[in-house]
């Protein structure tokens, strides 16, 4: 039967080449658009080096306070200060390691002696940053607590930054001095180029947060850092949230004298919530984002499906007598529907594979356009799309599932109608 389905499909395509071509191209474009949406959506949550542990990293990102005075609607919001980050997220039960790092975009001039300065994406971090995120060192080492405590002016560069600023190999870069925002710093490590899609870990220049940092204001509650935490095996998101909520209650108590109270906003965020965080004074609405994506995908499937349904209907009209013969020889209506869906699925799958390949090639070649603004709003840095963003089982699964749904949508009704034609009527055709 399987071979008959293939034979029938090929025969149909040969007999009606224009219809077949339109169906194939329509399917390919529908799957291309859908897979592009899926990929863009997927890179927000899939493991991407150096955020390889996205499934167990949690983020404390914002501080938001509101006035408790009657009639006073004032509120303040920003990133965390080191103090509030430590008070709210430090040493939680179920967290193996946590890191404080600057999460804001920070382009900075970096210059080697006698060379042209380059504007690079910098990030200040603590020493634990290298444990939460798995940057690959190609030369040198990360800075540790002792280095930070000693106040050493050190810097870790990406391979691309080394090429651009020092014009040498990573090994040759170690020990050299570069001016970072006019401050001389010694290069102690070089990491592989990383993608801006890993927006919390991405950077070209990494420096320690100074011990005497003055990156806080407003009673030391607000600042410019975030917290990334790595959950232990067996720990649950709810368990962590519960602890943070309790700390927020404690903070609220401590802030009473200031006539303000902190707003919890369901922190810490998991990867999905963090990727949907729109501002420091709102709670990420992941459900609404999921619904929007689902709606978009449905529209992308439904529109071509309606058009292709008409084509399938006209194709099946030529086969009414054949369906009558099959019914006469014992095929049930359900069997007829299954056969017709299977035949159509072959075409949809062929178009779907073409669409999937198109979306993969497109994502690879045009990644800077496809993922524009994600992680690097300036669009200056190459996306460096990791291969697992394109080649992963989830993408293949969704492509096949989409073909299946598209097949049902485009051929379901025509197949059902064809199976309902009375055998006697069908045999008269």
């Amino acid at each position, binding site marked *: 039967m399987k071979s008959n389905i293939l*034979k029938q499909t090929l025969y149909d395509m040969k007999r009606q080449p224009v219809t077949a071509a339109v169906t194939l191209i329509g399917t390919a474009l529908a799957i291309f658009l859908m897979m592009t949406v899926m990929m863009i959506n997927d890179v927000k949550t899939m493991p991407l080096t150096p955020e390889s542990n996205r499934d167990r990293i949690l983020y404390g990102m914002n501080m938001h306070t509101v006035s408790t005075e009657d009639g006073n609607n004032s509120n303040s919001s920003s990133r965390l200060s080191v103090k509030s980050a430590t008070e709210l997220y430090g040493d939680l039960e179920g967290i193996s390691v946590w890191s404080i790092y600057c999460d804001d975009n920070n382009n900075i001039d970096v210059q080697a002696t006698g060379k042209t300065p380059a504007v690079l994406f910098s990030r200040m971090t603590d020493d634990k940053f290298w444990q939460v995120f798995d940057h690959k060192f190609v030369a040198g080492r990360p800075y540790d607590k002792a280095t930070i405590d000693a106040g050493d002016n050190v810097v870790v560069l990406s391979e691309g930054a080394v090429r651009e600023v020092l014009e040498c190999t990573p090994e040759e870069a170690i020990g050299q001095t570069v001016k970072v925002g006019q401050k001389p710093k010694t290069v102690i490590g070089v990491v592989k180029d990383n993608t801006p899609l890993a927006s919390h870990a991405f950077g070209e220049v990494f420096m320690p947060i100074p011990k005497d940092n003055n990156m806080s204001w407003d009673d030391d509650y607000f600042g410019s850092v975030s917290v990334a935490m790595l959950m232990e095996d067996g720990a649950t998101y709810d368990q962590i949230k519960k602890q943070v909520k309790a700390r927020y209650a404690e903070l609220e108590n401590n802030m009473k004298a200031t006539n303000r109270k902190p707003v919890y906003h369901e922190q810490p965020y998991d990867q999905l919530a963090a990727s949907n965080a729109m501002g420091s004074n709102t709670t990420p609405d992941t459900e609404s984002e999921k619904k929007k994506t689902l709606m978009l995908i449905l529209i992308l499937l439904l529109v071509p499906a309606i058009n292709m349904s008409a084509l399938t209907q006209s194709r099946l009209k030529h086969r009414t007598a054949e369906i009558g*013969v099959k019914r006469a*020889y*014992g095929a*049930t209506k359900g069997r007829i529907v299954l056969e017709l869906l299977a035949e159509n699925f072959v075409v949809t799958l062929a178009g779907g594979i073409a669409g999937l390949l198109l979306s993969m090639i497109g994502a690879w070649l045009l990644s800077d356009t496809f993922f524009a603004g994600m992680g690097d709003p300036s669009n200056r840095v190459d996306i460096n799309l990791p291969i697992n963003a394109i080649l992963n089982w989830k993408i293949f699964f969704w492509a096949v599932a989409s073909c299946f749904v598209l097949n049902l949508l485009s051929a379901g009704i025509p197949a059902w109608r064809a199976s309902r034609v009375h055998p006697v009527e069908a045999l008269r055709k």
Partner: protein
Amino acid sequence: MNIIELNSVGKVYRTNTVETLALENVNIQIAKGEFVSIMGPSGCGKSTLLNVMGLLDRPSSGTVEIDGKPTANLSDKALSALRNAKLGFVFQSFHLIPSLSVTDNVELPLMYRQGTSDKERKARVREVIERVGLSHRMGHMPTQLSGGQCQRVAIARAIVGNPEIIFADEPTGNLDSHMSAEIMDLLKKLNKEDGRTIVMVTHNELQGKETDRIIRMFDGHCLS
């Protein structure tokens, strides 16, 4: 023993404005192994009668029994299974599936039958194609065959499932006299050698006379 029995069968086709009486009070008994032809002028209800007997259409009134089994209350699924097990069909315009080869066309009824292995199917298909004298055309497509050969393929398809009854609706209607004679010989052979019951609609008086009995129809009534 009667393998087909129609009692007081009526068939009315209704549209919004018109009601057409295709069969009225038809009573027919056909014995096992009989070769019966149905004759009558165009529009007298021959094909309708064949469709009702072949369980392709339900009567508006009366009962149809196949091999002693009443069919009135059978579901569509049960009717499909009964057609597959006991009935074979040969059509005037052959109705071969153009995308499939001779072998695949003949195999079709077995595809809708449970419990037949691939090996058994292939062997059975080969056997019946040889029987109708087309073993040299097994891989051919219907467009590569003559009308007579197409009808032989259709007959092979009708007998591949080893049905007890074959319904043939003007099987020689699209063939020249030479090919018609060949097809008639083949049907007679299936009747005599295998003991299959054959019910054939024909306009050809000579062919009718070659069968065991002629049922004559006129205006939806059975005359003999």
